[in-house]
């Protein structure tokens, strides 16, 4: 029998649930939380942090901590919402060749240039 899984990818928090029998059940994360912050961070040690740990280190690494990027999905760089966001967030929003809004995270050793494209 096929299994059913549902993912609520939110702007600030995300949640995953499965159908067990007739009932839905939210899957808890490693820390027992039923929701996980929609935050991803690229650290100088080339580590990728997701969720609460990413949020906790945001102060130390604001340029490479990406949050609320769901707002950019499907928008072009010239969009009003994007230019408003670009002034408010510490990470860089750049213009892709096709005009889409992309976000950029650059780690200290410049080995990696992360371009999270239009998903």
């Amino acid at each position, binding site marked *: 029998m096929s299994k059913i899984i549902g993912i609520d990818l939110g702007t600030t928090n995300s949640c995953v649930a499965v159908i067990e029998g007739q009932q839905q059940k939210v899957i808890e994360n490693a*820390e027992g939380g039923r929701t996980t912050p929609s935050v991803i961070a690229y650290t100088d040690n080339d580590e990728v942090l997701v969720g609460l740990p990413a949020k906790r280190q945001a102060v130390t690494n604001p340029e490479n901590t990406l949050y609320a990027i769901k707002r950019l999905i499907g928008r072009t760089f010239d969009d009003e919402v994007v230019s408003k966001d670009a002034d408010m967030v510490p990470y860089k929003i750049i213009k892709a060749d096709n005009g889409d809004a992309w976000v950029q995270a650059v780690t200290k050793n410049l080995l990696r240039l992360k371009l999270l494209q239009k998903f």
Partner: protein
Amino acid sequence: MPKDKKNNKLDVEDKADTSSENITEESENIGTPSYEELIDKNEDLEKSLLRANADLDNALKRSANEVEKAHKYGVEKLLIELLPVIDNLEHALNNLSKKATKDDKEGIELTLKSFESALDKFGMIPIYPVNEEFNPEKHEAVTMEKDENKKDGSIGNIFQRGWELHSRIVRPARVTVIKN
């Protein structure tokens, strides 16, 4: 009225007749399943039995796991509510008034100690990262600070102790991180 009843009875009999006819027609259409069909069906049934058994096994394992978690972390909410009391005792120790005697201080220290040992019995361990590297899994960066004597990325001040319950972070330690 009795007439109506009779009619109803007749109707029912009529329906019964037609439905039995339908059944005979259907069985004639389908015919007896062939040997290959039966083998296929048997294989399908065996597979679904295996799958059902595996599902049951998984469900049992998961429920056992959940019971264990409930035992381990059931007290989590209560303990979280008790943490501010510990914080306040610590604040009291750090900000004793000048009028406070040695005995007052000792009293608070003993209360704090007994409180901590009570939490320890339930698996609550404090996180107090002195001279450690900042680790976002256990610590929360509140702000950055400069200190020539310390390495980048290490912890400067500790604003608030963290707590973990059976290696799950209940509250991260709130710290400052060095960046020169």
